[in-house]
């Protein structure tokens, strides 16, 4: 949606936070960000969201309708918060695939889950959301939590998710969105651009990655735009739920 193409011969550009970069460089730049924050990703999530990210993820799981024996794909699964819960829900007869494009995040997630004894029904796959390496009609549920805004071609990623879902399967997109309340929006802006980079500097010694986080959230499609993107991709019964006054929204679509 936000991709820009300059001329016939120049390489198309896309946004990376507030700046434009050639499309071929975005994935590498995003990888650098997550490589930098991977070790303290969970701690930073707790600090920056005040623990709210756990509740947002809980609600996403409640919406998933996943049951014993299901096959679930968690894209941009990071440190495995959702995958661990899904592993419990699908049981030994089900399967969970934790996929992430970033090797560092995947390693942290894999180590963390194995340390917690989450094993047996879970697989770890390094994969690009735009070109998912799975057969058609394979999963009962696909989730992507706080990952879609980092994808270069969001339309391609949503189409890829549709392809790997079984008919009747659900896609859940948990992502930062646009606050519905003006007062909250102002407070959130101040928080994002003043506190988040400062916390990043203090905890991970990397303020730039958290400046990118704040900027990438502003560049991400709002609730209605993302909903229409999912409808255009072919999803049916697309709905979204705002959480914490719209700071975060979870979109759900069913594959017809």
């Amino acid at each position: 949606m936000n991709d820009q193409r300059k001329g016939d011969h120049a390489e198309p550009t896309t946004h990376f936070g507030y700046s434009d970069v050639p499309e071929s460089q975005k994935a590498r730049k995003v990888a650098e960000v997550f490589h930098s924050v991977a070790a303290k990703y969970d701690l930073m999530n707790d600090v920056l969201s005040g623990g709210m990210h756990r509740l947002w993820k809980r609600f996403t799981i409640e919406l998933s309708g996943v049951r014993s024996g299901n096959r679930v794909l968690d894209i941009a699964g990071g440190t495995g918060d959702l995958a661990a819960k899904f592993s419990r829900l699908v049981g030994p007869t089900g399967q969970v695939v934790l996929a992430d494009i970033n090797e560092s995040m995947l390693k942290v997630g894999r180590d963390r889950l194995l340390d917690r004894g989450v094993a047996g029904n879970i697989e770890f796959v390094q994969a690009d959301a735009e070109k998912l390496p799975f057969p058609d009609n394979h999963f009962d549920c696909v989730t992507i939590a706080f990952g879609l805004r980092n994808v270069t071609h969001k339309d391609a990623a949503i189409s890829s998710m549709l392809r790997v879902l079984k008919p009747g399967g659900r896609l859940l997109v948990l992502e930062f969105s646009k606050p519905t309340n003006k007062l909250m929006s102002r407070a959130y802006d101040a928080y994002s651009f003043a506190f988040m980079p400062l916390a990043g500097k203090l905890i991970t010694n990397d303020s730039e990655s958290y400046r990118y986080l704040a900027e990438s959230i502003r560049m991400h499609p709002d609730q209605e735009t993302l909903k229409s993107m999912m409808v255009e991709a072919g999803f049916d019964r697309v709905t979204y739920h705002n959480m914490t006054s719209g700071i975060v929204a979870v979109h759900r679509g069913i594959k017809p």
Partner: protein
Amino acid sequence: MLLAGVLASVEHGLNRVLRMDSTALPRLAALEGKVIAIDCVQPALRVYILPDEDGLMLAGHWEGDVHCTLRAPASHLARLALARDKTAVLHAPQVQLHGDSAALLDLVGVLQNLELDWEYELSRWLGPVATSLLAGHLRLRARWTREGLARFSQNLSEYLAEESRTLVGKREAEAAFSELDALKVDIERLEARIRRLSQSLDASDNA
């Protein structure tokens, strides 16, 4: 979000307690895959319970299949949690149960028969020596409190029955009841005797 936060905290605390009983989690594993909905009427609140080998998962919203739904006012739910005879509570007219009731009763049974190894949990924080000393002290205090309460109860009942004569003692009351019973039987015998005599008098008059 508020309910989700409360449920997350309750779930965390409950699972810590469940881990203190070595038999609770294997018993919950038998209920894996079951979804139990508790629908409280007053106040209106619906909570879903998903047991598995790691404990319980609580959810305020669930889109998947529900195997058992219990619908009752909060007072009846509390009674169900505490009562020994759960069948009597489940048969109350305000309580509605749909689906697989065995799953619900099994879950309640696991929660009611917990035998918590709190000393092990404490030893993880304080170490074995301090835990042993503290546990011995706590056990002594608990026994002292229990015995103290029993003695107080006995002394109070003796004072009320024997010294202040406010209440009648149990044995005294039993003796009085037994005398009353004997008196009642004697009166009945006397009545029967009078009846027989009057019948024989009537018979001789007619002759």
